[in-house]
């Protein structure tokens, strides 16, 4: 089979004739309009990423410019739903970065075990891959019954998907490998039932999980947690917004609470760097110490 050529395919941005300065104006206007009309604030998202996602939506809607997308999104709430899904979804996998889950099991779980009752927050949980992955580890370590887990996202639709616990069947081989590499102790297939249109994960994995809408940009802290997961979510934010969200996490963690970031994210340059110690350097696991 010939490999598909990338010579054609979706736009990776505007046509080359498009003026980059004008494009920036249009993008800022669209994001401002979306914020003022719908209340979703993407104005401080990382420019290159949001630009790429906006152009994908422009193309999917059969439009030619960001301004046309702005008009459509403001006048047609269903088009806004589609745009919201594009802008807010984060693409991930179960047990993405298996080493992280291995370290979570070996080095973080023993700390969590010292608490009689554990509160965990998955911030920006998207479709829930990480929620289920962490729940599997907690279940195998006998901690799931002691845990209260909050899984939040800005987007209602992905939360519903997360809650349903149905993942694509064609990813199960990859997820099984990840699970094994992460030190999984059972047969991964014990956790799901294969149906014709997907793998349904055992509802008992989320028996102590509350899925709820929360906006990291505009909402405040809603509880105190022993651990916050926020992996590969902040990469979509600009530096100023990252700092604001770090303030939110700091306020939401108990003393000695644990913050897990993506393996290419850090607290470096953030004003909260001194408030944490590194529990694991490579996997970017931090502990609040002051």
């Amino acid at each position, binding site marked *: 089979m010939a490999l598909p050529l990338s010579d054609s395919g979706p736009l990776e941005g505007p046509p080359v004739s498009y003026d980059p300065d004008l494009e920036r104006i249009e993008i800022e206007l669209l994001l401002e309009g979306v914020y003022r009309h719908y209340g979703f604030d993407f104005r401080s998202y990382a420019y290159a990423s949001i630009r790429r996602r906006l152009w994908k939506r422009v193309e999917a809607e059969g439009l030619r410019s960001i301004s046309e997308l702005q008009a459509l999104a403001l006048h047609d709430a269903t088009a806004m739903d589609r745009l919201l899904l594009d802008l807010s979804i984060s693409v991930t996998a179960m047990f993405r970065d298996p080493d992280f889950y291995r370290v979570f099991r070996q080095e973080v779980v023993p700390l969590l075990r010292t608490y009689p009752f554990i509160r965990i927050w998955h911030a920006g949980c998207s479709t829930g891959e990480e929620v289920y992955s962490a729940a599997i580890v907690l279940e195998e370590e006998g901690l799931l019954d002691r845990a209260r887990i909050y899984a939040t996202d800005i987007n209602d639709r992905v939360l519903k998907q997360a809650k349903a616990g149905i993942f694509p069947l064609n990813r199960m081989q990859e997820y099984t490998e990840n699970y094994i590499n992460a030190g999984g102790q059972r047969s991964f297939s014990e956790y799901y039932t294969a149906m014709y249109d997907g793998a349904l994960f055992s509802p008992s994995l989320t028996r102590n999980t509350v899925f709820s809408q929360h906006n990291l940009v505009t909402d405040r802290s809603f509880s105190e947690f022993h651990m916050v997961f926020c992996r590969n979510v902040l990469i979509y934010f600009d*530096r100023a917004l990252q700092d604001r969200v770090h303030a939110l996490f700091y306020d939401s963690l108990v003393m000695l609470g644990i913050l897990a970031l993506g393996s290419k994210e850090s607290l470096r340059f953030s004003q909260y760097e001194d408030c944490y110690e590194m529990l694991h350097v490579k996997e970017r696991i931090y502990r609040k110490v002051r």
Partner: protein
Amino acid sequence: MTYEIAVIGTSWGGLAALHQILGALPSSFRLPVVVVQHRHKDSGQFLPRVLQDDTSLCVCDVEDKTPIVSGNIYIAPANYHVLIERGHLSLSTDEPVAFSRPSIDVTFISAADAYRKGVVGIVLTGANSDGARGLKRVSDRGGLAIVQRPETAESSIMPAAALRQVPGARVLTLAEIADVLAALTVAPAQRRTGT
């Protein structure tokens, strides 16, 4: 013509090619370079470490919002796309493009749109056609497009695909590519802090 950033894309056979190019760059080299090498999603920090042995320039693993600094060599991490903005690098976990994450096209196009004619785009050996569209964007924006001479590449598919998209690209051996890079006029130093 002055240049502000170079982007290098490669896949199969890329490690040896990168060894040769980076090893030939002088320690006074001032252009920041972003390298996208396809590899396994869990391959970790091996690549920046092994490439650091070739050069006195700083070979860095890219983290989110890494500031772009003159003369540093930035290696795209496995399993992320690298997007280039003026002054810093952003990461994305969006879907693979043509089965690749990092995608060469994604990085090249973001570089061309952010730095326009200040970009040098280089496509090396590889067994797929990632990078062709990206190199076209670099060329369309007035940047310098360079392709490894296909018959000298371990796999000629990627350079040949890039040449189909950008027939006017300069076609060079690895040694010549290093010479051209070292001889480029570099724009005044990048800011030291990002965003």
